[in-house]
């Protein structure tokens, strides 16, 4: 293959992979804190892009993105307080059904608020025609923003969990809820924070890729399924592995255009993902014994 074309596909794969990684990280944060898989996770990435695109009409771009992330995080926390508190007691089935209901409500609310049209966001630097070039391949500076944001997310999250008091408290709750509350940590608050964090990260991902991929009210369900499979493929709960798996999926999807028609792009990737789930549900880096111990 032509090396410039190869790089072109490569960058496109990085962009899509980053948003899958962001959604997958959100799945992991909530899963670690509560054992819940939040089927509405992809909807927060949709909210991030849509909110930012609306707010950018009034606010400077950086403020619009920050506000979108904050609003999505608040929506995440609120949905946990209203609908999901104690959902674990209702069993796996109750959790699935509740979060699916939630995802539909968010999607329909977005449809009512923004209508069915496709939205986009201004480029963070330059415009749609500005481009950088490496080895003859041209790509938008936005790609660097996407990669930077992903790196920042992973680094920031690791630092948060390892270095800050709150991050340590959250890890404590995940390891042993009763033990953590004996140490004076409020587990309920930690769960709410986990939902806010997961929603915020998804929204940030959704906003950063929006100039390149565009966004509309209905992208959440697909992001959820891809993000979940990426999280499962990396080994549920492992955020670093999720980033690797997310980028791999982005590459697969991007290069699949070479062999299959564009309309079937998602069909191929979802089929591959399902195949992976069937063959190795414990994930790429996970172990079967660890999976067997998990409540799911």
């Amino acid at each position: 293959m032509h090396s410039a074309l190869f790089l072109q596909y490569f960058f496109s794969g990085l962009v899509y992979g980053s948003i899958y990684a962001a959604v997958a990280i959100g799945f992991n944060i909530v899963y670690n804190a509560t054992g819940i898989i939040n089927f509405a996770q992809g909807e927060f990435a949709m909210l991030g892009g849509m909110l930012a695109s609306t707010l950018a009409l009034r606010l400077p771009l950086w403020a619009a993105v920050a506000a979108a992330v904050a609003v999505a995080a608040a929506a995440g926390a609120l949905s946990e307080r209203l609908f999901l508190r104690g959902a674990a007691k209702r069993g796996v089935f109750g959790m699935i059904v509740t979060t699916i209901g939630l995802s539909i409500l968010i999607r329909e609310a977005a449809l009512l608020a923004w209508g069915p049209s496709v939205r986009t966001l201004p480029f963070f630097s330059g415009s749609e025609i500005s481009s950088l070039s490496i080895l003859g391949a041209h790509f938008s500076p936005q790609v660097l923003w996407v990669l930077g944001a992903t790196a920042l997310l992973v680094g920031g999250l690791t630092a948060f969990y390892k270095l800050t008091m709150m991050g340590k408290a959250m890890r404590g709750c995940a390891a042993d809820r009763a033990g953590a509350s004996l140490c004076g940590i409020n587990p309920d608050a930690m769960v709410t924070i986990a939902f806010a964090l997961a929603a915020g990260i998804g929204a940030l991902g959704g906003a950063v890729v929006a100039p390149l991929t565009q966004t509309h009210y209905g992208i959440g369900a697909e992001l959820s399924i891809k993000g979940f499979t990426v999280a499962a493929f990396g080994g549920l709960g492992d955020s670093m592995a999720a980033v690797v798996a997310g980028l791999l999926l982005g590459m697969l999807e991007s290069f699949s255009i070479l062999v299959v028609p564009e309309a079937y792009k998602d069909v191929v990737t979802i089929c591959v993902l399902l195949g992976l789930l069937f063959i190795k549900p414990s994930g790429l880096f996970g172990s079967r014994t660890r999976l067997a111990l998990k409540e799911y």
Partner: protein
Amino acid sequence: MRLQRLLPAAILAACAFALPPLFAAMGVAFLLTQLTMSAYYALASLGLCALMGYAGQISLGQAGFFAIGGYASAFLCTRDLGAAAAPSGLVRLLDSSGLLVRWTDPYGKALLTLAPALSGLCAVLLAVLVAALLGTPVLRLKGHYLAMATLGFGIVIEKVARGTKALGGADGISAVPGLAILPGLSVTGGRAARSANFTIAWIVLALGILVLTNLVRSRPGRALRALRDGEEAAAAMGVDTARYKLKVFVIAAAFAAIAGVLLTHYNGSIGPGEAASTRSVRYVAIVAVGGMDNLVGTLVSGLVLNFLSLRGVFGSFDDAVFGAILILVMLMSPEGKAARAFRSLLPKRKVAGR
């Protein structure tokens, strides 16, 4: 006891014959159209009830099987086989066996196609085959993984329907002919056939609930419930869990496919919206409202909710209503927050002897 088991089916069958003249006398015969469609959607929900309520296997792909049935039958009975200059041996063989029909579509084009009854049968068999192939790996998954995998299956079916030109892309397939089940009786739209089709749909629904009631009240049915309440325990009791799960998965798919075939021929068209994940969620919501392991409850909620939705009662909130229903059902369930809050409002009952 046996009579009680027959009761829901008997009521449905009685309604199938009694409601058309009654509605005609009341001047509301137009309602029969939506009640016919609701019956087919309820049939698909009943299949899901057996799978989800009794066997405890969540599926977010029921609409996928519905669409496979509808699309396959619509495709096979509108695909012109006579266009080729020299018909192949297979076409000649089918033609001489009387399995092909010559007709003219609404646009005035003469067609030689598979007979709708045969295309419908093929469509259901296709759905059963897909379910059998998919079920083996999918049903090894549990909980979240099973839900995601079936959701993915549904999305794949919708994307294929939307992206394939031969299936009409975003427009779907229209001008689907009626499906003749008896001489002079066929599943088709239009005012003249309205009463007869209402009767057909409700009789099919009655048969459906009869089959499933017998299934869940029998030895396999008890095996399914044992499986739901504890897979390891059921296996230890000698239940071949994998086989039972696969069987009920295939049965659920067959119910959805039959409903899809009949509704497609009744409407005369099918579109990719029938395969959408929101549709699958709708089936789940109907089963949840019906009380999960409750066939009669699912039947009633399926008829009522679909009827209201088809009458446009929910307006532009159509999908949102079903999402809200799911959350409410869970919050109202005995373990749910709303139910506990409600109970705390009630006066505490005094326990005798304290």
